[in-house]
């Protein structure tokens, strides 16, 4: 069944997009940093997972336990070292947005340049759990299912943390109104740093999972940044449920177009979907009308 085939791989891809976008929505919604170098961290994690697996014999799910905390620390350090300066300088939210766009755009080229020097422009992949599993009469590689399950666990865990714990509630409060959040004794600078680092951890998790079943190269980060941004905006900034729905929508649209129309037109499909949703609901699927 070619349709079920396409739907299955669309859902796995969409699940990845949703997970990646959740991290970006934390960075943008809570920390107010529009991070254009986001996808570079995904590629860095993918290369790390590749190196762990082929060089050290550590399998990707175990690699996840090493890569994610590392990414959390690195992103926390980046926020503290590079971005707090911009936050302190910015007079308005719009000014911070422009500054963070510019700074992370520079960071994008630095990280991508380092990856190009280290790995060259070639495509990388490795074979982990590449055994066929039959689902609903169609076959799918086991690594895709593992990745999807891991993404669901991580995404579900994040959702519970954000909705059921004090920490999550504090983060959501900062996302809604940073000034009012201070009035109820939330340290918004610590919350922003934490949200940024958490976003970095999520994108690294996405990178490890994606590397299990997709080929990747040093220059591909920009594509993931773009898709994560599109998913975040389509779903409504700061909304985790929106990420899930928009991510799945994007994954399905891309897979269906590449399977039934032409693989060269996936990006066109992405942008058409993006524009269509924006023209219909300017604040995103789940966003409240802002401004």
């Amino acid at each position: 069944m070619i349709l079920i085939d396409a739907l299955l791989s669309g859902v796995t891809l969409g699940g990845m997009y949703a997970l990646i976008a959740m991290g970006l929505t934390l960075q943008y919604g809570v920390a107010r940093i529009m991070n254009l170098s986001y996808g570079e961290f995904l590629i860095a994690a993918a290369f790390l997972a590749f190196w762990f697996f082929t060089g050290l014999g550590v399998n990707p799910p175990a690699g996840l336990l090493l890569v994610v905390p590392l990414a959390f620390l690195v992103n926390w350090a980046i926020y503290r070292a590079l971005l707090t300066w911009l936050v302190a300088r910015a007079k308005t939210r719009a000014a911070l947005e422009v500054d963070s766009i510019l700074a992370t755009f520079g960071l994008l080229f630095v990280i991508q340049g380092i990856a190009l020097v280290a790995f060259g422009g070639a495509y990388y992949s490795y074979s982990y759990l590449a055994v066929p599993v039959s689902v609903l009469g169609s076959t799918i590689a086991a690594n895709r299912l593992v990745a999807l399950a891991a993404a669901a666990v991580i995404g579900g865990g994040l959702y519970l943390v954000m909705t059921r714990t004090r920490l999550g509630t504090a983060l959501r409060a900062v996302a809604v109104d940073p000034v009012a959040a201070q009035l109820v004794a939330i340290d918004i600078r610590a919350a922003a740093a934490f949200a940024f680092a958490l976003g970095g951890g999520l994108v690294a998790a996405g990178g490890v999972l994606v590397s299990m079943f997709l080929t990747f190269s040093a220059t591909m980060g920009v594509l993931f940044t773009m898709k994560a941004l599109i998913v975040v905006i389509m779903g409504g900034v700061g909304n985790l449920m929106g990420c899930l729905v928009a991510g799945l929508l994007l994954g399905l649209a891309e897979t269906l177009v590449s399977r039934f129309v032409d693989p060269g037109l996936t990006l066109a499909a992405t942008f058409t979907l993006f524009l269509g949703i924006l023209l219909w609901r300017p604040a995103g699927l789940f966003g409240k009308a802002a401004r």
Partner: protein
Amino acid sequence: MTFLPLIPATLLVAALATLPLYADGYCLSLSLSLLNYTVLATAWAMFSGPTRYVSLATVAFFGIGAYSVAVLGEVLPWPLVLLIAAAVGGAVALLVGLSTLRLSGVYFVVFTFGLAELIRQLVTWYEVNVTRALGRYVFVDVTQAQIYWQMLALATLVFLTGWLVGRSRLGFALRIIGDDETVAPHVGIDITIVKVALFALSAVFMTLAGAIMAPRWTYIDPAIAFNPMVSFQVLIMALLGGAGRLYGPLLGVIPLTLLFEFLIARFPNHFSIILGLVFLVIVYLVPNGVAGLTARRAAR
């Protein structure tokens, strides 16, 4: 109301126009690339300076211009080719502007972030599926000196347009939008029309720059024409110089074009890293550009 700056400007253009008569090939090609970046950075700042909407799509329009020449250069007379290229670039800008500039600035940034890649994919798809050849040869009978003169004319035109826009109602409206987008509609400004018009205008100049430069390559493919590095370099130059003033970008173009020329020859593999670091330094240390610094000193 003063026309005084026009006199030294005219003299400068006249002096620059004589360059091909005595300069050697390397000097001419360097000057050409200076002019090219001047056009791109000034056109970029024309829209993004006053509105503070960061456009990352410079190379999308530049590439459209280059491709128009590659497709039509041999079949149509040159002025007509330029006209068509400008029309295509303007139309794409209108389409993008009308669909994203009505919304918040972030959507515009995200869209321009992907626009070059989107157009590159579409052109690649078209070339692979319809013409069945990825690259194209650009055979246009034109000397380097002629390209230089055309680019000089375009640069003059950009500055003249920017100067006129700055003194017109349109430019005034644009500055109000940049200062406070909530106030602007209350004083009777149709903010969407103004933003879209300026975006299209700046896009036309970028497209023309791409069209004029295209014959220098002789061979182009989508990866060459839509190289994201160009958008990045233009952004750096405009920011270093200062996007708030008409002459601002020029102050960034001259040192950085020379620096990049040197870097790409000496460190071709590390070019992108150094470029990113240079850019970070500019964002952190000279946020308003060199023009902003000198203006602040003068105001003191």
